[in-house]
């Protein structure tokens, strides 16, 4: 009885629409489509223009707009060869920086994921005094601007820590990648712990209790129960952190220096945009090289990203 009562209004609603109502509906849906198309075009056009330009010969990029391609098509991969492998100092040498980006990113994603997972498990499932305050503190740290940490952290790496003239922590060797990994890991933890905690807290408590009754240790519970169940959440956070580290400029500028020794692609591109701002054949191809990897990862893992955004992924 109740089922039909609910279905009835919907069934009645469909047919008796007046003609005026139908026209109004069509009109609004037409403007709506126009707005949608306008925004979609506006949002795609700049990227498309850049991609197309990166494939055009140098003299054409610099003298004609990319839209002339359709009347006078000419394609080349020279720009990519030049920007990746060119030996002249002006050419970009992006291949080295690409490797740096990879070397920076992999540990800077793995470490915070693991450490945040451990901490989130403790905060979600181990009752201890002061737990709420620890959690709220970490949550608040999410919003603290990185800028607050940069100067002292750099001096911590370059000079170490001395208390009253006694060295406690020695200076780090600043040539390598370790300090970049360290900085990225520190800055990622608040968001990571918060996100993973939210997912872990949603796991059924009976599951943990049953495992504990069976004599499972926390290590076993983590490995056998928690990690498999929150694997999508781990993927979400890993994806966030990957995009953050790969696309980061500020942390890299300060902790990775500016040379092909250890600086990532973003640093090199920012340099090129500043000093060789009109060498569009290199800028377009370089920008595309740096964008293509996150784009592929992003497109294939988009649903994890959306899930993370909806779970409150805000980063400091």
């Amino acid at each position, binding site marked *: 009885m109740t089922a039909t009562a609910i279905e009835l209004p919907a069934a009645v609603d469909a047919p008796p629409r007046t003609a005026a109502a139908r026209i109004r509906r069509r009109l609004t849906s037409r403007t709506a489509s126009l707005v949608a198309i306008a925004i979609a075009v506006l949002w795609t056009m700049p990227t498309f223009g850049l991609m197309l330009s990166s494939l055009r010969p140098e003299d054409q990029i610099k003298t004609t707009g990319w839209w002339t391609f359709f009347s006078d098509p000419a394609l080349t991969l020279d720009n990519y060869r030049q920007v990746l492998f060119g030996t002249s100092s002006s050419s970009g040498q992006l*291949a080295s920086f690409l490797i740096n980006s990879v070397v920076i990113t992999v*540990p800077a994603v793995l470490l915070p994921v693991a450490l945040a997972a451990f901490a989130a498990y403790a905060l979600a499932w181990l009752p201890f005094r002061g737990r709420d305050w620890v959690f709220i503190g970490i949550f608040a740290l999410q919003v603290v601007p990185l800028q607050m940490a*940069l*100067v002292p952290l750099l001096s911590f790496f370059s000079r170490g820590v001395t208390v009253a003239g006694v060295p406690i922590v020695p200076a780090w060797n600043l040539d390598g990648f370790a300090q970049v990994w360290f900085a990225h890991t*520190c800055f990622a933890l608040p968001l990571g712990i918060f996100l993973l905690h939210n997912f872990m807290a949603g796991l059924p408590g009976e599951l943990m209790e049953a495992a504990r009754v069976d004599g499972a240790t926390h290590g076993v519970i983590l490995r056998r129960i928690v990690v498999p169940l929150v694997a999508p959440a781990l993927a979400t956070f890993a994806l966030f952190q990957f995009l953050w580290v790969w*696309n980061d400029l500020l942390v890299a500028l300060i902790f990775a220096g500016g040379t092909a020794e250890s600086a990532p692609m973003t640093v090199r*591109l920012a340099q090129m945009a500043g000093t060789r701002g009109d060498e569009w054949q290199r800028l377009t191809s370089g920008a595309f090289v*740096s964008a293509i990897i996150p784009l592929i990862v992003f497109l294939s893992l988009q649903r994890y990203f959306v899930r993370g955004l909806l779970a*409150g992924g805000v980063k400091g």
Partner: protein
Amino acid sequence: MNLAFDLAAEAPKFVQLVIGVAAFCAVVAAMLLLVDRVPMRQRARWPAAVLLAPALLLLGVGLVVPAIRTTVLSFRSGDTTSWVGLDNYEWMFGQPEALTVLRNTLVWVALVPLLVTSVGLVYAVVVDNTRFERLAKSLVFLPMAISFVGAGIIWKFVYAYRPPGADQIGLLNQVVVSLGWQPRQWLLGPPANTLFLIVVMVWIQAGFATVVLSAAIKAVPADLVEAARLDGASPLQLFRRVTLPCIRPAVIVVLVTQSIGTLKLFDIVRTMTGGQFDTSVIANEMYNQAFRYGETGRGAALAVFLFVLVLPIVGYQVRNLRQARQEAR
């Protein structure tokens, strides 16, 4: 063209990568071993301490202690050797160049969250329940995967300038010229150049707003919409009276997130203008003062001011979180 790439020369980097991954494995193994060695019993304190220790240590060393030191540094001179009282703050609120920076940041924070939310909301509404919804959302969402540096270059190319008479290579100037106007150097003339930089940020972030708001719109109870429609509400009324009140929390999330992100914005300004032509913002100026001009005190003062600006947001968020946790009990 001279092309060369010596993979062997890059080998040391891969050695470092292997060391880094090995360190990761060692940390995980050590943690799991340690937490299993700790007696379980009723007390959760010890396993919790083991599991939390590395994260809390890193947060302390990497964020908390540096933040306190930065606050102290903001009262010290540029080379950090002597106390200068409030001099750095006086500089920040007194010198015209610093005031320009503050004004620009204000413009950014006033406009970006508003524009991002509006564009995201309009787009989420117009593509809702259409055949191309997924594709349409992906298109607007894509810029989120691109770095701010990459986005800066993409838009610098859109704004590219060629003198009148020559073929334009930038899309915007081409449109302007074909409408019969003169081409312009969009990024050189204040105060409008800040607006052209803001466009880039909106372009990147609109996808975020679209996704969050679209999910909220879909969660609006269908019978509510149906009831309003039966009462003869027009689409616009429906949106204002039913949809908007229902998605208010999501709108606030977008506004808050965007405000925080915009306050800390650095990459776009640095890539596109380097902060010249009166476009600098706090985060960019902080980097310049602290790491380029050796004015650590001023840089620290700017960072502290940034922190003070987000403080109310932190307070608001913490209050919400505590309420949510209390309700969950």
